[in-house]
């Protein structure tokens, strides 16, 4: 058993709404190994974004344990990067400089920064848009810049909050493969929140299914290698139907289901 990269133990989070506490996450237990790719699915409002913010260290007001390499998380760090649900680009910086902003404190030389920014813009297919401002990009393109920005400093932890939701189907499939390849290649640990159960099965080593109000883990499902490798394998279809059922979606015995 390796030392877990990330350990959540009885993690709970409440917000105060109109003077009263509202529990948003309840007793989350999860242990993530280095290099693991975790996907999280759940209805909207069940606390997925809140969970990522806690792991990122943006919100330190919670109960329970949250540790990275055995150390409690005290705040954000360059070891973790995130693609927020909205792209959150700085409107006054070009695509290129938005990506470079993530490297400002990285200690790389100017030339290395320029080169790796270029590479990452190329990776998300936006090499020609380096000089464009966010206002000149479509929602999907902005989201791709945000993905490049999250990858560019080669973080150990990659937190992804519905990163591919705004993309057209073809780009989404291509970037799913890219994400999978990069996470494997960089030996990064990834946590990806998604609405798309197919995506959860295709990318995750394990799928965390959340139930809402308060957000809690309904099930953690291991993804068989065969399901992860091939979207049309019987293992893939079976697992997808299982996860959909967990989310309360009835699936016909055989055939296609819209995720």
């Amino acid at each position: 058993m390796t030392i877990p990269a990330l350990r959540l133990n009885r993690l709970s989070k409440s917000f105060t709404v109109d003077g009263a506490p509202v529990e948003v996450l309840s007793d989350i237990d999860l242990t993530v190994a280095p290099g693991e790719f975790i996907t999280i699915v759940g209805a909207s409002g069940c606390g997925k974004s809140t969970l990522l913010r806690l792991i990122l260290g943006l919100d330190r007001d919670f109960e329970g344990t949250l540790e990275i390499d055995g150390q409690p998380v005290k705040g954000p760090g360059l070891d973790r990067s995130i693609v927020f649900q909205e792209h959150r680009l700085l409107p006054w910086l070009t695509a290129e400089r938005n990506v470079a902003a993530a490297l400002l404190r990285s200690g790389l030389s100017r030339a290395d920064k320029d080169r790796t920014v270029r590479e990452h813009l190329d990776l998300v297919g936006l090499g020609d848009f380096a000089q464009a401002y966010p206002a000149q990009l479509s929602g999907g393109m902005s989201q791709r810049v945000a993905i490049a920005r999250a990858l560019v400093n080669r973080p150990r932890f990659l937190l992804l909050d519905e990163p591919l939701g705004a993309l057209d189907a073809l780009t989404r499939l291509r970037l799913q493969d890219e994400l999978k390849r990069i996470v494997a290649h960089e030996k990064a640990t990834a946590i990806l929140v998604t609405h798309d159960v197919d995506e959860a099965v295709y990318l995750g080593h394990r799928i965390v299914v959340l139930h809402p109000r308060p957000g809690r883990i309904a099930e953690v499902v291991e993804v068989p290698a065969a399901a992860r490798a091939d979207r049309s394998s019987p293992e893939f279809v079976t697992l997808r139907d299982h996860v959909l059922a967990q989310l309360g979606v009835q699936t016909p015995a055989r055939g296609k289901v819209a995720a």
Partner: protein
Amino acid sequence: MSLTDTGANASVSVDKGAFRSGPAGLSLFGRRLWARLSAVLLGLSFPAALLALWWVGAARGWLPPQILPSPALVWQTFTELWADGSLAEHTAVSIRRVAVGFAAGAGLGLIFGALCGLFPGFRAYAYPPVQAIARVNVLAWMPLLALFVGIDEPLKYVVIAWSASIPVIIGTVRGIAETPERLNELGEVFGFRPQDRLRLIVLPSALPSIFTGLREGLANAWQTLVLAELFASFEGLGYLMTWGRQLFQLDLVLISMVVVSLLGLSLDTVLKWLERRAQPWNAGGRNG
């Protein structure tokens, strides 16, 4: 999608107004020109109507000439003032006062506003008095100020600077305070130092509000100039107005008013242009 693709999209969205009102079949450039032109014409239509009314009113003798001089007389006075150089002199004096006063007021306002915006402790202690003082028109302070700085040029500089600084302070404080929390969080995620956050997040996000403050400050500066010159001056456009009024030379008053408003408008236009230049990421940016 290609680069030219978005470029075209951006300019179309910028030009929506032109697209709706312009005649069909014009090129992009033609449509832009048409949009400019129709905006200018629309803006001029009301003054033109007033001018026509004045012309007709003066010709028919609706009001006695001591109260409303005819356009011809005003024009004649204007050419005289122009020819003997006195209009230029008074204008130069006024411009100098506004320039010095506004530069000082805007500069100090920016510094003070930035300090309040960036340091909550400083703000808690220094901002409330300024907000209180801002509620009283600076002219009400003039007698008191005159005790300290006399009634010569420094008094004018001080009141103009004062009135210009108030909106600049408020705009700067508000702009900095209203930096979106989600962008501040981004700075945390990237491990920005305070100076990085200032340069990459706080200042650019505060710019629109700061420029609004600067433009209001400039408008204040002109208003205060005229009032200060009405009370205590022997030169400048405001003085020209008082003098004209005392001599029942309404033509002088009208000419000074027109010069003051044209100057105010042109300087505001310069500020607007600067505002656009300072924020190339808006309205299509480089491609637009």
